[in-house]
């Protein structure tokens, strides 16, 4: 067998994992690179640092975990981030699901324009979205703060939820709902007992996406925040004076929760029939 550096699409007749091939090693290397900064972030949450700058290892400590809630303004920022994310997820999931359902199910005048609007909202650069919101708030003299952040977050999340749900609706078999109607189910019953359970994976995926987008958002939040501070804004502000280790701890905790939720979701998905190749 000639050794080629080119990726080989098919390796028939050879036993699998005969050797660690180059591409496998490369994939692991890439993953290692992506994880390196995260590993450093986690490690420096345990750093027994005494000055303001947290980039030299000074010994192991758990004191930042014990004093996690010492910085009042940081706690406020985290609470703001969490409540905004929850509220915006709730609102955008309801509105986005309805829109996604309508767009996936019905053909109606304005449907194409709505779809285009969603696509524009998704592909619009964040800084432009933030700048335009700020322009509007300035033009109409609206004070910026918690409420304007929430309104903005719902806005950019709606499009993602709607698109996710629509993708799910398009793949559904309309015969199931017709069967429910033929069996005498009214519109509300059909929605609750048939449609909603069928689109639920799309709704959950959309809601998770909305939550992540909101809690992670920095740019649009920065333009709409006024004096209100969220976690990303606080972290950004702290880079000038030195980021305290509590930020690493909070980052680690958020990371852990996100990873666990995804692992559970992935495991559930894995139980569904597997379409992976057997070669």
């Amino acid at each position, binding site marked *: 067998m000639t050794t080629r550096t*080119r*990726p*080989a*699409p*098919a390796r*028939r007749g050879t036993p699998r994992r005969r050797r660690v*091939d180059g*591409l*496998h090693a*490369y*994939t692991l290397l*890439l*993953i290692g690179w*992506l994880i*390196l*900064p*995260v590993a*450093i*972030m986690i490690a420096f949450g345990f750093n027994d640092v005494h000055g303001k700058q947290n*980039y030299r290892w000074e010994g192991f400590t758990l004191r930042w975990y014990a004093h996690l809630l010492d910085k009042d303004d940081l706690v406020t920022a985290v609470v703001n981030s969490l409540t905004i994310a929850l509220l915006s997820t709730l609102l955008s999931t309801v*509105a986005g699901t*309805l*829109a996604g359902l309508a*767009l996936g*199910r*019905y*053909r109606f005048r304005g449907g194409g324009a*709505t779809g285009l*609007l*969603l696509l*524009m909202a998704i*592909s619009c*650069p964040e*800084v*432009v979205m933030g700048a*335009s*919101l*700020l*322009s509007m708030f300035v033009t109409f003299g609206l004070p910026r703060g918690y409420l304007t952040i929430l309104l903005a977050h*719902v*806005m950019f999340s*709606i499009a993602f939820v709607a*698109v996710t749900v629509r*993708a799910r609706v398009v793949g559904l078999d309309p*015969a199931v709902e*017709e069967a429910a109607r033929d069996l005498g189910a009214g519109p509300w019953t059909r929605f609750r007992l048939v449609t909603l359970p069928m689109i639920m994976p799309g709704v959950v995926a959309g809601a998770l996406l909305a939550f992540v987008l909101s809690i*992670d958002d920095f*740019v649009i939040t920065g333009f709409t925040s006024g004096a209100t501070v969220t*976690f990303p804004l606080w*972290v*950004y502000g702290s*880079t000038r004076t030195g980021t305290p280790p509590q*930020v690493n701890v909070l*980052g680690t905790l*958020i*990371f852990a929760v996100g*990873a666990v939720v*995804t692992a559970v979701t992935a495991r559930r998905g*894995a139980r569904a029939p597997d379409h*992976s190749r057997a070669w």
Partner: protein
Amino acid sequence: MADSAGRTGERGSAGRVRGALAPYLMVLPAGLWLLVFFVVPMVAMVSLSLQTGDLVDGFRQTFHWRNYTDGLHTYGDQFVRSLWYGLLATVACAVLSYPAAYWIAFRGGRGKTAYLMLLLLPYFVSFVLRTVSWKLVLTDDGPVLGPLRGHGILPPGFHVLDTGFAVVSGLTYNFLPFMALPIYVALERIDPRVVEAARDLYAGRAGAFARVVLPLSLPGVFAGVILTFVPASADYVNAEVLGGPGDTMIGNVIQSEYFDNGAYPVASALSFALMAILLLGVFAYARALGTRNVLEAAGR
């Protein structure tokens, strides 16, 4: 047998009215929200971009087109640099993620989901914090470069932070999943039997890849290019955290014109110009490659 009449609405006259109204009622909340907080702000921004005035006396509509010409003239360098950095990061993302996506899609076997998750794991750390952590990696006496420098592996003058390279590396790091995921999805959809057929027809490994796998995966690459290029070239966090004063991008200018200088009209003009340039670029790109291909892949 699916009855197509059932999809469009209810039977019976009352039902028909409800069926006809239903999609509008369902789209209404989302549509209104986008109208008020996406469309109206855009209009407000365009209007503001033609005004003159200052923060103290307020702004007045004067159709001052020079906001555009002056803005583009003054910050042309930053515009070009943004597009250039965005392009570099996009290419880097494609080159770096394609082989890994390929391996996971074709060789991942049962571990496919696990590998994909590992690849996406870093993105559970929030964007700003991730960038700050990446800065730590690139810091001269940080935990990575410090020891390397201490052991004399790196030359004494070696320096990464505050350079254009640092900014592009940060953009690449932050936006890699936008490229890796569409490529992975496209590769994963390729029927392995097609590849086998190519091999049976005496295509070599390289031939089968170049003439079968690569073309079939291109829609994923095209979608990835748009998904990566737009946010990367409009970003300002990476340039702010990782770059030096000579590496600022147009996002930094927009941000500081708004918040440091209170020059709202110029900032609005610049951000509208940025959007127009990116949109035109995306449309030209889509046209060149075939609209259907790109939109289909991007809309997935």
